[in-house]
């Protein structure tokens, strides 16, 4: 027997249980009506006494209930029969209304609907045959992330506790079917229904805005499925440490991520620019470099965001002047200026006149905008950074004159989609941070030379049998293929493809931007960036032996056995 579906059974049981009374009513009223017609004497066409049999009675009552006015069959009725018909009509009609009414009530019942929804969700998850990610929490972050993944054709399953969020998911067309369930993700049963234990489930992403729920999602996923990849959003350092302790693969703290991002920009605009290009997704317009100045900064709001920023700014030798309404509650340093920052006097106290930059980092969007506007009134040349808490304020922030906007949802979604789609990018960015500015500047100009106006397309190449059969075959015969061979145009080998290898990962070492003469071996991995069309060309070289030997040697190898034999004999 197949695995039982408790969910399916629930719905049927519920319907049957609720339909008991109405069905019994229908049966009883029918049986009384039928019996009445059998017992009451009638008359046939010649006026002789005649009695209906059960067959005729059942026939008459059946059509009487639904279509009154069919006629008196098989012979015109006597008055006694008509009287009984009157009673029966009211009886059967009421019984049917009752039965149909209660069936509709059951179907519209919220608990029944929930059972049905779970049911169809369960089926939808079972139908997914490709690898998919289980995403818990469909807010701003979830929405951005799923859009990015759907664009790449990566399947997802969503759980959220708010029905509104699930409705929004269903309304929005993302090109692929994304099953969504309204349920509590901290309940492991719900994770299992969402396909946690299915072999196709490649990872769990916890995006709810409550740390302890993300924590319980991570724990259950790791417990229920060994080696399940878990990526989680965190708000506090406590939760981050806790999650790391049982092996959550990635924890993402939006405040810390943004703070490092800003610090990188101050430290090296080129590195920041590279980071921005790589994570913005293919074919987005190239962003201009931002140049946050060195000097005196004013930081309004010393919450989790403010603390993360101060820590990272101190690393760049910038000690920001802190403005905070509640200095004691937030354990602000002694130099703090007490106030909200939205009024000019506080900003004056903080010395905004001779500052180079201002950061509005409170958890209230209106206050943040007000801080920026007040500060710009006093000092036109400020570099402005503002934290945006709600995505509905997108428009207001765009209209304001802000150099850098910290959108939590955007930061988390970008980071996670990078981790999922090009895991090697994380390694690249880590290695990049170790290089100096000069090196980053050169790389920026090389990449912008390749891709022009648009952000580079990123993809990774694995040298193994599944992905590059031609390369493996070639390596067996003549073990010398270099990076440059992969970057030649298979249509005309003298031309180079518009792409650049960012990272070559070998078994023992990682080479950042390898030379085109670097040799390739089995099990190597490459991260390549460039124009989108070149991905197909490189894939062609990877998989087609004849194309590979053409780019390598310039000789068009005959592909048929006969021609190969002919070529061999003519050569000899």
């Amino acid at each position, binding site marked *: 027997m197949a695995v039982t579906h408790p969910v399916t059974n629930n719905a049927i049981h519920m319907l049957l249980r609720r339909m*008991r009374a109405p069905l019994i009513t229908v049966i009883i009223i029918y049986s009384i009506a039928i019996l009445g017609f059998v017992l009451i004497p009638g008359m046939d066409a010649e006026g002789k006494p005649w009695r209906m049999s059960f067959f005729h009675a059942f026939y008459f009552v059946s059509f009487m209930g639904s279509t009154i006015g069919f006629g008196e069959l098989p012979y015109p009725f006597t008055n006694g029969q008509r009287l009984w018909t009157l009673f029966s009509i009211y009886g059967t009609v009421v019984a049917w209304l009752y039965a149909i009414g209660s069936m509709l009530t059951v179907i519209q019942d919220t608990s029944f609907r929930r059972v049905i929804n779970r049911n169809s969700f369960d089926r939808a998850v079972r139908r997914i045959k490709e690898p998919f990610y289980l995403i818990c929490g469909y807010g701003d972050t979830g929405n951005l992330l799923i859009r990015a993944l759907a664009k790449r054709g990566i399947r997802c399953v969503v759980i959220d506790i708010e029905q509104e969020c699930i409705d929004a998911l269903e309304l929005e067309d993302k090109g692929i079917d994304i099953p969504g369930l309204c349920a509590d993700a901290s309940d492991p049963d719900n994770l299992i229904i969402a396909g946690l234990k299915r072999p196709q489930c490649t990872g769990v992403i916890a995006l709810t805005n409550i740390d302890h729920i993300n924590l319980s999602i991570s724990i259950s996923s790791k417990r229920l499925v060994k080696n399940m990849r878990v990526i989680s959003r965190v708000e506090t350092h406590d939760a981050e440490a806790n999650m790391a302790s049982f092996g959550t693969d990635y924890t993402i703290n939006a405040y810390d991520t943004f703070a490092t991002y800003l610090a990188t920009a101050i430290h090296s605009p080129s590195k920041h620019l590279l980071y921005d290009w790589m994570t913005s997704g293919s074919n987005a317009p190239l962003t201009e470099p931002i140049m946050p100045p060195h000097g005196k900064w004013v930081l309004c709001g010393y919450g989790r965001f403010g603390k993360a920023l101060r820590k990272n700014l101190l690393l760049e030798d910038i000690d920001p002047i802190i403005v905070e309404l509640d200095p004691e509650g937030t354990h602000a340093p002694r130099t703090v200026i007490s106030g909200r920052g939205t009024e000019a006097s506080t900003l004056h106290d903080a010395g905004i006149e001779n500052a180079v930059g201002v950061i509005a980092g409170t958890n209230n969007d209106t206050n943040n905008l007000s801080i920026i506007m007040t500060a710009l009134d006093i000092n036109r040349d400020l570099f402005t950074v503002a934290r945006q808490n709600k995505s509905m304020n997108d428009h207001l922030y765009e209209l304001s004159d802000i150099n850098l906007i910290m959108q939590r949802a955007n930061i988390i979604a970008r980071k996670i989609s990078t981790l999922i789609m090009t895991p090697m990018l994380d390694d690249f960015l880590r290695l990049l941070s170790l290089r100096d500015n000069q090196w980053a500047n050169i790389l920026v100009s090389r990449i912008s030379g390749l891709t022009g106006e648009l952000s580079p397309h990123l993809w990774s190449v694995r040298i193994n049998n599944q992905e590059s059969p031609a390369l493996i075959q070639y390596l067996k015969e003549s073990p010398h293929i270099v990076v440059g061979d992969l970057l030649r145009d298979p249509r005309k080998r003298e031309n180079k493809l518009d792409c650049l290898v960012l990272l070559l990962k070998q078994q023992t070492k990682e080479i950042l931007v390898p030379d085109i003469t670097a040799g390739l071996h089995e099990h190597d991995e490459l991260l390549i960036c460039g124009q989108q069309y070149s991905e197909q060309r490189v894939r062609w070289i990877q998989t087609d032996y004849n194309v590979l030997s053409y780019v390598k040697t310039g000789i068009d190898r005959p592909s048929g056995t006969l021609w190969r034999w002919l070529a061999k004999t003519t050569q000899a």
Partner: protein
Amino acid sequence: MNLEKVIFAFFTVLALTLNFGFFIGQIDNPDHHHVYELYAALIVSLIATVMKFGDRTHLGAVLLATSLVADLQLLVAAVVWGVAEHITETGLTASVVASIVSLSGGALLANITSVVMLVMETAQVRR
């Protein structure tokens, strides 16, 4: 005392007794088997079936199954009767009556099974 149990047992046993009443008699003698009794047995059996809807226990499932068997047998018996009287118009010959009664005999077995299981369940409950 649980009113639901009373009604449930009432219909289950009544289905058996009515069925038995129809079944008893010479198998091919139409005078021993009245159509009203068959009608009553069928209606009560249908009601007993609906009462077993939605019971999620194992016993409930088996009871529902036996009850459905009884319904099916009685329905076929009623259809045979109707066909013989009105469609082929052969009337209640000995062979027709025999097949109707033997069909109801099958239903009787199913109803006996139901009642036996009901008694067994009742015996297990010591309250």
